[in-house]
């Protein structure tokens, strides 16, 4: 039974930071700057605050039900059938997230390095490794991802520091050249990816070791603050380097790494960012697949989530291959539909369950 797995508060906060930062540090800056221009960092602060509010709801529910997952306490609070009904959207959204994360790797590889290689060559490998990691369990994931995320942070920091001589701080002003609207648009976009996705951790908080669980709230909040700071730094550096063109560059951090040239010795280090994107996306895909399997297992009251890992990974793999019809449809889904989808799939059910828990607690 999956309850035997336990991790400490530090490990879950590392997993949380990995999940929130993994692929977003590379995928977020360009589209966000495209929407909010030089006010992109303000958008991140706004959406980060919403993410913090959602995290507050999750930690409140965890304090009330320390040994239960979201599905389990939702069953207790609103009943079995309403839980099953409101779980349809989160399940669909998790499948979409998994598809999107893995497809991002394939699109990145195809657009930057291996243009003629079919998508399945990348996606099948990522799904295989992710599924095997999920089968290995949460403890293995927590230990392994800590090492990988340290490398990613070092690589990204090194690239941002080495590109420093090319930065032009004048590009940061005016902060809101077209008023508040673009900043709000950017905030809505970055709320959808990655801040509303914090919801997935409602399924994982139960695994935190109880005697040492006291530092959980502090660690989780610290992780989210670190994530907001990291994304803000990455976005600000991108704006300072490319200015108004930053929104047009597809993988702006990758492009930023291409500009690094230190004494003609340290050059062409963009592959480091490529590796970080692949590793970050793999970790996020693994956590998403883990939560998706756990969600289905708890919803159907299965004893072990491990049995259904491979079929769910297979469905996600096939959905990556045939799910969307055109690149245009995919861009619209990710940049316009996704924030609304996660609002109804993650934020609304979480707020509903929190309100019910609060009212019941007060009534008692």
């Amino acid at each position, binding site marked *: 039974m999956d309850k035997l797995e336990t991790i400490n508060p530090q490990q879950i906060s590392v997993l949380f930071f990995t999940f929130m930062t993994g692929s977003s540090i590379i995928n977020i800056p360009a589209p966000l700057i495209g929407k909010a221009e030089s006010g992109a960092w303000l958008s991140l602060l706004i959406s980060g605050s919403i993410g913090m509010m959602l995290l507050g709801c999750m930690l409140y529910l965890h304090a009330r039900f320390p040994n239960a997952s979201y599905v389990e306490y939702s069953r207790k609070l609103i009943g079995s059938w309403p839980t099953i009904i409101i779980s349809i959207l989160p399940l669909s959204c998790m499948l*979409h997230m998994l598809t999107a994360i893995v497809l991002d790797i394939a699109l990145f590889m195809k657009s930057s390095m291996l243009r003629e290689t079919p998508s399945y060559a990348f996606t099948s490998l990522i799904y295989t490794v992710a599924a095997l990691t999920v089968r290995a369990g949460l403890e293995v994931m927590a230990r392994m991802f800590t090492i990988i995320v340290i490398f990613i942070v070092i690589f990204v920091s090194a690239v941002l520091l080495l590109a420093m001589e090319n930065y032009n701080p004048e590009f940061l002003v005016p902060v809101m050249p077209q008023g508040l609207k673009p900043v709000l648009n950017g905030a809505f976009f970055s709320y959808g990816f990655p801040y509303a996705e914090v919801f997935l951790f409602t399924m994982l908080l139960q695994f935190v070791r109880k005697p040492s669980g006291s530092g959980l709230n502090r660690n989780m909040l610290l992780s989210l603050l670190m994530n907001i700071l990291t994304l803000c730094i990455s976005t600000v550096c991108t704006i300072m380097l490319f200015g108004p063109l930053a929104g047009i560059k597809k993988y702006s951090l990758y492009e930023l790494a291409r500009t690094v040239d230190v004494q003609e010795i340290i050059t062409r280090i963009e592959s480091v960012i490529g590796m970080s994107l692949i590793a970050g996306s793999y970790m996020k895909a693994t956590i998403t697949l883990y939560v998706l399997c756990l969600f289905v297992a708890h919803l159907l009251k299965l004893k072990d989530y491990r049995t259904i890992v491979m079929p769910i990974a297979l469905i996600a793999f096939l959905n990556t291959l045939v799910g969307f019809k055109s690149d245009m449809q995919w861009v619209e889904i990710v940049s316009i539909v996704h924030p609304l989808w996660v609002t109804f799939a993650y934020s609304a059910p979480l707020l509903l369950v929190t309100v019910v828990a609060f009212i019941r607690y007060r009534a008692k």
Partner: protein
Amino acid sequence: MENRLYRVNALSKSPGGMHVLERIIVLLLAYGSISLYDRSHLRSVSNRAEKAVYIVLMLASLYFAIPYIFESPIDFPGLYELADLVFTDLARRLDQMLTVPEP
């Protein structure tokens, strides 16, 4: 003879340039490796419900596998068609509301 050859070509190669045979091999590899990997685990699973869910999920995967083999001819309602139906109109309106029109 020439006609028949043309028909075989048209059927076996999609506009994307990927052969039907290639897609069948991809699927056979995917299903085959999963069956081999899960065989011993499924034997150790005593819970009937788990086995039933496993079979249902594998059957559900065929829903995606069949359009993958034949690609464009089958216009099946997938995850994104449903999301499109529910969210796209409202999402577009929100996006328009928050976008500053070009001067």
